[in-house]
C-alpha cells in the first residue's frame, strides 16, 4: 500500500505545490521590491477564487458550455479584476506609508486582510461556495499493491501553472518591464535617478503578484470545487512558507519552494496524519526561519548600518 499512497501523494503534492508557487510569487516579488510582507496577499487569492466562481456562473449563464472558452474567459476576467484589486490595495493602504515606521505597513496589511475577509463575507454570505466540475475523467494506473489516479483537472493545473511561471520568468528576464522591476529591486534610489518611475514599477509588481494569485485562484477552484471567505488565511501562510523556503526575493526560489512544500505536506498528510498537516506546515516555517532564514536560493540577509 505504501507505493500507491506515496505516488498518489506525489501527484497531489506536485499539483498543490505548483499552486503554492504561484501565490508565493506574489509574496516574494513584493518583498524583493519594497521589503514588506504583503499580509493581505492570501486574501487577494480568496477574492480571486470568488471572482472565478462568478465568472464561471456568468459565462455558463450566457450559454458558453465548451471547456476551453469557459476557462479562457474566466481566466481573463479573474486576472484582470484581481490585478485591479492589487493595484487599489497598494495605492490606498501601502503607498502612503512608505516613509513611515517599520511596523506601519504590516499593521495596515493586517487591516486590509480583515477588510477583505469581512467584505467577502458580507457581500457573498458566509456559507461555502462551489463550482461544478468542469473537466471529468482521470487517468488511472495500477502500481504495486495500490493504484494512482491522476485526474485530467490535475494535469491541466500543472500545465497551466507551469505556463504561468514560464511566462512570468520570460517577462522578468527579457522584457523592458522585467528589467525595470529587477533594477528597482536592486537599488530603488539609483533606479529612480536613472529615470525609472519607481512608483509605477511598484504598482506593476503588485499587479503581477495579484495576477499570479488569480491564476492560482482559478486553478484551485477548478480542482477542489469549494471555498469560503476564510480560505485565504491558511493558504496565505503556506504560500509564505513556500516563499521563505525557496528564498524570499528570489523568483525561481518561490516556485521551487512551492513545489517542495506541496510535496512535503502531501506526503505528511498521506503517510503520517492528515489532521495535523497544517501544524506540520507551520512547524516547517518556524524551523526554516530559525536555521536558514535565507531559504534555499536566497542570499544571506545583510543588515546595512
Amino acid at each position: 500500500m505504501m507505493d500507491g499512497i506515496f505516488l498518489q501523494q506525489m501527484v497531489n503534492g506536485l499539483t498543490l505545490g505548483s499552486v503554492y508557487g504561484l501565490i508565493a510569487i506574489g509574496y516574494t516579488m513584493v518583498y524583493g521590491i519594497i521589503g514588506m510582507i504583503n499580509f493581505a496577499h492570501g486574501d487577494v487569492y480568496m477574492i480571486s477564487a470568488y471572482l472565478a466562481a462568478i465568472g464561471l456562473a456568468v459565462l455558463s449563464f450566457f450559454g458558453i458550455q465548451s471547456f476551453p472558452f469557459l476557462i479562457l474567459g474566466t481566466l481573463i476576467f479573474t486576472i484582470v479584476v484581481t490585478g485591479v484589486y492589487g493595484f487599489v490595495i497598494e495605492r490606498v493602504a501601502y503607498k502612503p506609508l512608505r516613509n513611515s515606521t517599520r511596523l506601519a505597513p504590516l499593521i495596515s496589511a493586517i487591516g486590509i486582510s480583515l477588510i477583505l475577509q469581512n467584505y467577502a463575507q458580507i457581500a457573498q454570505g458566509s456559507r461555502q461556495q462551489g463550482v461544478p466540475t468542469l473537466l471529468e475523467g482521470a487517468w488511472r494506473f495500477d502500481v504495486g499493491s495500490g493504484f494512482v489516479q491522476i485526474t485530467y483537472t490535475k494535469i491541466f493545473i500543472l500545465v497551466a501553472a507551469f505556463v504561468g511561471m514560464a511566462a512570468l520568468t520570460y517577462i522578468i528576464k527579457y522584457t523592458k518591464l522585467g528589467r525595470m522591476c529587477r533594477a528597482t529591486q536592486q537599488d530603488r534610489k539609483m533606479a529612480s535617478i536613472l529615470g525609472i518611475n519607481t512608483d509605477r514599477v511598484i504598482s506593476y509588481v503588485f499587479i503581477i503578484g495579484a495576477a499570479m494569485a488569480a491564476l492560482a485562484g482559478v486553478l484551485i477552484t477548478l480542482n477542489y470545487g469549494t471555498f469560503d471567505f476564510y480560505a485565504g488565511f491558511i493558504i496565505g501562510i503556506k504560500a509564505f512558507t513556500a516563499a521563505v523556503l525557496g528564498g524570499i526575493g528570489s523568483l525561481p526560489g518561490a516556485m521551487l519552494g512551492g513545489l517542495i512544500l506541496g510535496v512535503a505536506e502531501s506526503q505528511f498528510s498521506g503517510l503520517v496524519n492528515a489532521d495535523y498537516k497544517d501544524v506540520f506546515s507551520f512547524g516547517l516555517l518556524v524551523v526554516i526561519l530559525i536555521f536558514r532564514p535565507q531559504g534555499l536560493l536566497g542570499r544571506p540577509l545583510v543588515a546595512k548600518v
Partner: protein
Amino acid sequence: MDIKKSLIDSVMAGLMALIVFGPIVGVVLDGYSFNLQPTRVAWLVLAVMVGRLLMSLFLQTPRGLIISQSFESSGSGVHVLPPNHKSMLRFVLPAIIVLAILFPFVANKYILTVVILGLIYVLLGLGLNIVVGLAGLLDLGYVAFYAIGAYGLALGYQYLGLGFWSALPLAAIAAALAGCILGFPVLRMHGDYLAIVTLGFGEIIRLVLNNWLSFTGGPNGVPVPSPTIFGLEFGRRAKDGGIPIHEYFGFAYNPDLKYIFIYAVLFLVVLAVLYIKHRLTRMPVGRAWEALREDEIACRSMGLNHVLVKLSAFTLGASTAGLAGVFFASYQGFVNPTSFTFFESALILAIVVLGGMGSTVGVVIAAFVLTVAPELLRSFAEYRVLLFGVLMVLMMIWRPRGLIRISRTGVVPRKGVLNTEGAAQ
C-alpha cells in the same frame, strides 16, 4: 484649484470602484447560479466618486498641502514635556478608584460582565504593549499565551485539582515559560519575519488544542471551576462538599456575587500590573526596550544584551496574558479553541496600535472603547470586523504611533553641572 484634475481623479476612482465592487458585490453567488444586486454597487461607486472628489479638492487647498507634506516625513517617537509638568493623573486616578469601588453596588450583571471583559482586554493590551509598543517586536501570536493561561486553569482543575487561586500564579509562570521558549528562536529575526513566526506559533497552539481530543477536549472545550475564596464557594449549592459563601456569612444568595468577586480581584490585579509597568518603563529595563524598538543595531553597539532585552519583553508580556487567561476562563465558565483565533490577536494588536505604542493610558482607553463599542453597536455586528480593519488602516495612515504618544518629562540639569549663565565654556 484645478477642478478638472479633481474631476478626472474622481472618474478614474469611480471606474476602479466599479471594477472592484461590481463583480463581488453585484453578482451574488447562489449555488451554481447567481443573483444580481446592481443598486448596492451603484451606491458604493457613487460614494467612492464623491469621496475622491472631495479629497482631491481638499488636498489642493493650502491646509491640504501642509497635510500632504507631513506624509513625506515620519515624526519622532516621544513627546517631551516641560520639567515641572505635573500629570493630570494625580486627580484622575483617585477618582477612578473611588468610582471602581462604588461601581459593583449600582451596576446590574450585564454592565458588570462588559466591564470585566474590558478589564481583561486592558490586561492583554498592557502585556502586548510591552512586547509591541515598548520593545517593538510585532507579536501576532499573542493569543497563544492567553490560551495557555485559560487552558492552564481548566486543565489544571481537570487533571491536578487546581483551584482559581493556585492556578493564578502557576498560569502566569507557565505562560512566561512559553514566552521564553518562543523568544529563543525569534531572537535573530526582524519585523516581518518575527510577525509571521509568532503568527505560526499562535496557530500551532490553536490547532493542537483543537485536534488533541484526548487531552484538551478538542472543539468541545473544557469546563472551568468557579473561583473560591478561602474555600467558600459562590454557587447556590456547594460542590465537592464545600460551604457556599452566602450560608457562611448568612446573607441571601446573590447570583452576581461571583462576578463581583472576579471584578474585584481583576481590578486589583490590573492596578498592580499598571503600577509595575509604570515603574518598569522608567527603569533601565524599560529604556532598553525602547532603545531596541528604535534601532536594534545601535542598541547592541551601546552594549545592551539584545537577548536579555528581547526575552524579558516576551516573558513579561506572556505572563500578563497568562493572568488574563485565568480571569477569562473563570468569567466564562468554560474554554474552547474558538476563543483563541488569530482575530483575537489582531484585536489586541488593534488595542495597542490605536491606544498608542507604549502609552499606558492610551491602551486602557482603547481597551475599553474596543470592548464597549461592539456592545453599543449591536445592530452593526455584521460589519464589526470590517470596521476594525478600516480603523487599523486609517490609524496607520493618520497616526502611526497611536492616538496618545508616550510622553516623558524633561530633566533639568543640576546647578553647577552646566553653566547656565550664558558664559561660553
